[in-house]
């Protein structure tokens, strides 16, 4: 990966006309993924197919696992051995991964899980769009833990946010989700891949002492709450467990240790939310109606806001690039202006993100929902904005 010609091969610098799923795979390559373990599922399969070809060619490893229970655990094992690792799936596979996502959080093993959302629950509409795994991404595994989730709205963002997700996972040692959706995954658009040396790469913090020099404490932390990571095979004699553990990584089964550990896992993200979070704003300055949207739906929302503005409606869009952490602070600031009269939340589920907005305001929060298979059109949103 440090090897320069290989880095050139990894990063397909240039301007492309590219499928969202392929852009995600290229983001994985440019972002330095060493290992991909996956199991085919529509509409994410093109990510696996592309990486099956591309990853071995640049010195990475691809394994098609027996199921998603195996996919997620194999990327965690690879991560423990030092790999940047990623898997890609859709709702049914995402559900299977949930238990091990908690293990990733507890062991603090960096990993990226791509969920290309389709219409759910169950097998639902396998080839059609959904955005209904967004709360599952936040709360799906049992217990409290820190994580982050990004939702691309274009193939370009599939590339950019895959790189960002890998960086955030490594920097904070958390599971990070790329919550794509079928529309964005199967959309072909212009994707600009920068020169290799312009792709930002952030790596996990590593121990500052040599193995054997002193006792290595795998979970000792400084101010940022993130422990330095020693990998399998380096001589540090690491121990990791999903049980509640102390700094040595040894089980320490007391309520006090548990409380301190779980709070730290959550605080790693909470205290760094401003660095992890991303959103963008469109026409918000004097907006009385604020539309909050993410992924494919934010494209309809932008169009609707543009059309409504032409007809004199004072509205704007807060587009969530990171859904988690949720930009709570930014919404509070908008509310303090006193100009906002209402929120509108379009999404391809029955109101999952709306709850998050309702939590922050007494103002009306209007919903525009479709259970899946189709997304709100600009006309659907415009009707509510006017």
């Amino acid at each position, binding site marked *: 990966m440090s090897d320069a010609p290989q880095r050139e091969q990894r990063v397909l610098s240039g*301007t492309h006309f590219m499928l969202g799923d392929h852009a995600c795979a290229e983001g994985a390559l440019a972002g330095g993924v060493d290992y991909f373990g996956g199991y085919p599922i529509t509409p994410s399969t093109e990510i696996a197919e592309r990486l099956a070809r591309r990853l071995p060619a640049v010195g990475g490893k691809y394994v098609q696992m027996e199921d998603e229970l195996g996919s997620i655990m194999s990327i965690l094992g690879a991560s423990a051995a030092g790999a940047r690792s990623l898997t890609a799936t859709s709702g049914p596979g995402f559900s299977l991964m949930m238990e091990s996502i908690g293990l990733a959080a507890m062991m603090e093993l960096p990993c990226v899980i791509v969920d290309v959302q389709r219409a759910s629950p169950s097998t639902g509409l396998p080839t059609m769009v959904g955005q209904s795994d967004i709360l599952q991404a936040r709360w799906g595994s049992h217990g409290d833990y820190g994580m982050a989730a990004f939702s691309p709205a274009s193939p370009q963002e599939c590339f950019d946010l895959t790189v960002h997700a890998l960086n955030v996972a490594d920097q904070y040692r958390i599971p990070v989700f790329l919550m794509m959706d079928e529309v964005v995954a199967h959309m072909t658009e212009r994707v600009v891949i920068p020169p290799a040396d312009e792709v930002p790469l952030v790596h996990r913090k590593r121990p500052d002492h040599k193995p054997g020099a002193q006792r290595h404490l795998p979970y000792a932390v400084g101010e940022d709450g993130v422990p330095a990571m020693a990998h399998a095979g380096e001589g540090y004699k690491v121990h990791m467990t999903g049980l509640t553990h102390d700094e040595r990584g040894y089980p320490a089964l007391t309520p006090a240790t548990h409380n301190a550990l779980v709070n730290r896992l959550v605080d790693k993200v909470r205290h760094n939310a401003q660095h992890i979070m991303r959103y963008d704003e469109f026409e918000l300055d004097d907006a009385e109606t604020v539309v909050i949207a993410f992924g494919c739906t934010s494209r309809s929302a932008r169009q609707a806001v543009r059309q409504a503005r032409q007809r004199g409606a004072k509205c704007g869009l807060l587009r969530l690039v990171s859904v988690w952490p949720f930009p709570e602070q930014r919404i509070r600031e908008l509310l303090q202006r006193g100009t906002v009269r209402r929120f509108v939340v379009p999404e391809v589920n029955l109101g999952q993100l709306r709850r998050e907005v309702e939590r922050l305001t007494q103002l009306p929060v209007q919903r525009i929902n479709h259970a899946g298979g189709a997304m709100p059109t600009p006309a659907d949103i415009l009707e509510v904005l006017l």
Partner: protein
Amino acid sequence: MTATSAVIARDHPNDPLLRSDRFPHILCPGCGIGTVIHCYVEAMAASGVPLDNHVCVSGIGCSGRAAGYVNVDSYHTAHGRAIPFALGIAIHKPELRVTVISGDGDLTAIGGNHFIHAARRNMNLTVVCINNFNYGMTGGQAGPTSPRGSITSTAPKGVHDRPFNLPDLARAAGASFVARWTILHVRQLRDAILRGLQKPGFSFIEALSPCPTNFGRANDLGDGMAEMEVYRQRCRIVQELPGFDELDIDFVDEERPIAVGNFVDIDRHPYQPVGADAFDNVPNGTQRVHHPVGEE
């Protein structure tokens, strides 16, 4: 602490191989799991592979606690998922010798699918299954290796389902090395694990082991020593993999032998990840459509 125990604690030759700062361990008196751990660390020391290149991965259960006591990079993962975790390590760092030590329930009930697929791929892993015929940690429920008729907390009138024959399963799935020993056979068990560590591909070692607290008590097998006596009387060492029914274990029929041995030791291609030479770098249909960035 008496003077004698202090001397023993200071001088045991295996101390550097164990995380002695974690003792006392959680295992019950008479449990066989400690013996399997002992056989593993001795095999590890004898393997010629530097200690820093050994990795131990476990799932969840009493047997799953093995990873917590060995002084190498070690991971105590999730119930049933030790094998895919180990696979991720072994693939990213092929120079490491990754051993999975876990229970019968962990590896062959909830984790059964990973087990057969890792064997199918002939993945470079040594898998040691501590078979105590039940779910020890959760209080002695029936599992996929509980012999028919045996009493467990969830089969008070005797287990109804047919059990797995693990050596047969491992062989059929494609393992290169398959052995079954008991914790009475300390030397053979250590040597079988050693063979596993040295052999490329998937090695499977079943270690029959007393769980006096649960299975032993429910089935009148007595304490750990008494169950070892059963092994001593009834084990027959065989060279070839016996037929399916001959591998059955039956604690009720006292005439029935328990087949043990190194059953399979064959050379098959071990797993090789797809190499760099396998594909063109850029797939068809992904040519750049405009000029490279910067020239536009």
